[in-house]
Structures are given as structure tokens and as C-alpha cells.
């Protein structure tokens, strides 16, 4: 049950033009840096990317936008990216904005084999257009569908060769949800260890969800807003 592949290039094999990808991360925190670089190198086109954000101009998902590999972006917030704005306004890029909790829960629904979920987020707004509204106990909810992704690409802190993953701090975010949701899930980790080295009580993502795993390299882990106080 060894799921190790040697690097990002090998991990992304099978991702072809027009596929739908989920990419973990919140802002630039907990993003699969190595796989994004490999995707840029591979040049795969017309991708639909599901990710909470769209990176910045020169890092994260922004790199895939720069190289015009993304046809459609499904995200909750895309504010930090000038190239994104240009492509969206020119019509090169389709954008579907989804409330953040809805985005997370639609990933979870896919991983949990639930075809749809109900959420009050977006009721009475343009997000509700074309969606079924249903009242439970006097409150309106939207029915939102589970996502359907060909590949999910996640980043964890530690992983073992059987695919068990542990995330660190807020780099967890969407990663465990997307890990469960991909038809094929790729995990890149900072530390790859042998089975038995991780405490089974502390595993965030059981290996059953992971198809390929590798230890990434040269993590930049860029900080978007460096806020500090004086000692």
C-alpha cells in the first residue's frame, strides 16, 4: 500500500486538458506549491480550478493564471490578483463565486458521499439564482450540490507512505476536505515518514483518500500579510 511517487511531475500524471482540479489552501497558506509548479511546466490547458482563492500575481494559483491554463475558477475570494481581473474582464476566464462555507461544505459533501447539502448562505442574494430554496423549521436554505473533481491536490505537513496526513495550524483549511473529494487525490508533504511513525489518533486525513504522495521540496511558504508587534 505504498503510494509514494518520486516528485510532483510524476504525481500530476493523468491530469489532462479540460479537467476539474481542487487545490487546497487559504490565500497562500497551505497551498500545494510543488504541484502548481509542475502543472505550469506541464502546460495543461482549459482547467477548471476549485480553490478558495486565486493566489497572487506571481505565486500560488496566480502562476497558472499567468500561463493561461485556467478556463474557469470556482472560489470565494479572488481579490489579490491583477492578472485574474484582466482575464475575467476580458472574458478569457469564467468565474463562479461561492460563499466560503458553501465551498467547504460542497467539498465535504463529495468526500462524504452526499450529493447535496442545505445551507442558508446566499438566500435572497444573487448566489441563490437558479437554485432550489427550501424551508426547514421556518428558515430558508439553498440546496447546493457536491463538487465533482477529477483530481484534488493538497498540501500537508507530515504524511506517511500509506497516505495518512497531518496538517499544521491554519494550513489545514480546505486541504482535508478536498483530500476526501477528489476522484484521484495527490498529497505533497513537507515530511514523508514510514507507516507507524504518525500517531493514528492524530491523523487528519486517513490514507484511504490519498492515491499519490511525495515529499515536496523548496517550499517558499510566502506570507501574504506580514503583521507583527514590537517586542
Amino acid at each position, binding site marked *: 500500500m505504498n503510494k509514494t511517487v518520486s516528485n510532483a511531475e510524476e504525481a500530476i500524471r493523468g491530469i489532462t486538458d479540460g479537467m476539474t482540479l481542487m487545490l487546497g489552501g487559504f490565500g497562500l*497558506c497551505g497551498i500545494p506549491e510543488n504541484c502548481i509548479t509542475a502543472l505550469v511546466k506541464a502546460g495543461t490547458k482549459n482547467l477548471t480550478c476549485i480553490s478558495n482563492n486565486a493566489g497572487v500575481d506571481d505565486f500560488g494559483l496566480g502562476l497558472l493564471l499567468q500561463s493561461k491554463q485556467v478556463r474557469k475558477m470556482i472560489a470565494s*475570494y479572488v481579490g489579490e490578483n491583477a492578472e485574474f481581473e484582466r482575464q475575467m474582464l476580458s472574458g478569457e476566464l469564467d468565474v463562479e463565486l461561492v460563499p466560503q462555507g458553501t465551498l467547504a461544505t460542497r467539498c465535504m459533501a463529495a468526500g462524504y458521499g452526499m450529493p447535496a447539502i442545505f*445551507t442558508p448562505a446566499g438566500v435572497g442574494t444573487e448566489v441563490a439564482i437558479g437554485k432550489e430554496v427550501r424551508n426547514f423549521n421556518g428558515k430558508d436554505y439553498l440546496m447546493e450540490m457536491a463538487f465533482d473533481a477529477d483530481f484534488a491536490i493538497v498540501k500537508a505537513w507530515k504524511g506517511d507512505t500509506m497516505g495518512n496526513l497531518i496538517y499544521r495550524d491554519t494550513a489545514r*483549511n480546505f486541504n482535508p476536505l478536498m483530500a476526501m473529494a477528489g476522484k484521484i487525490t495527490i498529497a505533497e508533504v513537507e515530511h514523508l515518514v514510514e507507516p507507524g511513525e504518525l500517531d493514528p489518533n492524530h491523523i487528519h486525513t486517513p490514507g484511504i483518500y490519498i492515491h499519490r504522495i511525495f515529499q515536496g521540496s523548496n517550499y517558499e511558504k510566502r506570507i501574504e*500579510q506580514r*503583521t507583527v508587534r514590537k517586542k
Partner: protein
Amino acid sequence: MLDKIGIAKRIAREIQDGYYVNLGIGIPTLCANYIPEGMHVVLQSENGILGMGPFPFEGDEDADLINAGKQTVTLLPGSSLFDSAMSFGMIRSQKVDLTILGAMEVSEEGDIANWKIPGKMVKGMGGAMDLVASAKNIIVAMQHVNKAGESKLLPKCSLPLTGLRCVKRIVTELATVDVIHGRGFKLIERAPGISVEQIKNATAGRLIIEGEIPEMQIS
């Protein structure tokens, strides 16, 4: 007239001991600085933290530890970390006691618009729609009028909505106002030095004035 810090200070008075609180970006974030000493409050950040602490000391920043505004933060003792589904799960199930956020417009009915201006680049709603649809107690921190001098407290919102009938209270540079469903904005307090007349002139929606309106107490 209150400045941003004044608004934050006034809103901080709404926070009670034992509260779990979600603070939006901008003025709401400032509220954390004015929680009274000795009061134990836990801050939620919807990217996956309960027990968020202040910014790290210089040199202690950690790329893996940010808040929903993507700022580097710290953890306090008793904190916990979780994924985004659980984070919005606790928001939807109303475990968060108080949500404080900014707005572009609020209507008499408590509708809120704070995510999109037609014709301008749309950045996305982030977690705002989830928060306003679920939170049991929402306080809005905002300016009473926009830069063009137009009131942001309206009979109906003109901008695309973020959520319906959700705002309970609004604190602006001029006043504290409550939303009374079916009736309008009820004036609760005047900012220091502000007259009822000034508030009336700055409020396009129906303003309910009952009895003497006290001046805000801000420490």
C-alpha cells in the same frame, strides 16, 4: 463624532464574558484591542482558529498561522485548529455568540450589502454570506454616510445583497442604531457631541426616535 477607534471601542462594549466572537476585517478587528481586562473572550477566525491571539512578535511570524484576513497571528492557550467545514459548521449552528462586520449598506429590515459594487471588480464574498445567514447576533461597524455624503442606512439596499434580515445593531461615527423588523432603525445612542438632528439627516431609512436619546459612554 467617533473615529474608527471610537467605533471599535463602542462595539467592544457589546462583548460579554465567555463569548465566542468572529471579527471581520477592518474596524471589527480593532475591537479585539478594547475588550475589558479580565473578560475572557475567544476569537474565531473562519479559516480555522478558535483562540486567536495578537500579531506575533517580529521574527516569530509563521506562514502556517494566519487569520481570515491573511495576516500572521498567534494562538492563545486553549486554542484549537480545524478545517473550513467545521469552521463554517460552528458558524451555521450558531455556536459563535457575536459576529461583528463591516457593511456598505444596511436596510431598515436588517438586510446587508457588503460584498459587491456593480461596475467595479468583484473580489468575492469570502465567508460573509455564511456569517450573515447564520449568526445569531450581528453588529455592523460602518460609516453612517459614504464618501459622496449619501446615507448607508437605507429603506432598501441598492447594492447586491449579502444577506437578508440579519443585522441587529449598527454602530457608526454618529450613533448606535438597532434594527426593529417591520418598523425601521431605532436610535439608541448619539455619539459624543452629535445631535439627534444630525443623525436624522444622515439616515435615509426610517429612524425611530423614542424619548431622550442618551450619549454613548466610551471609556
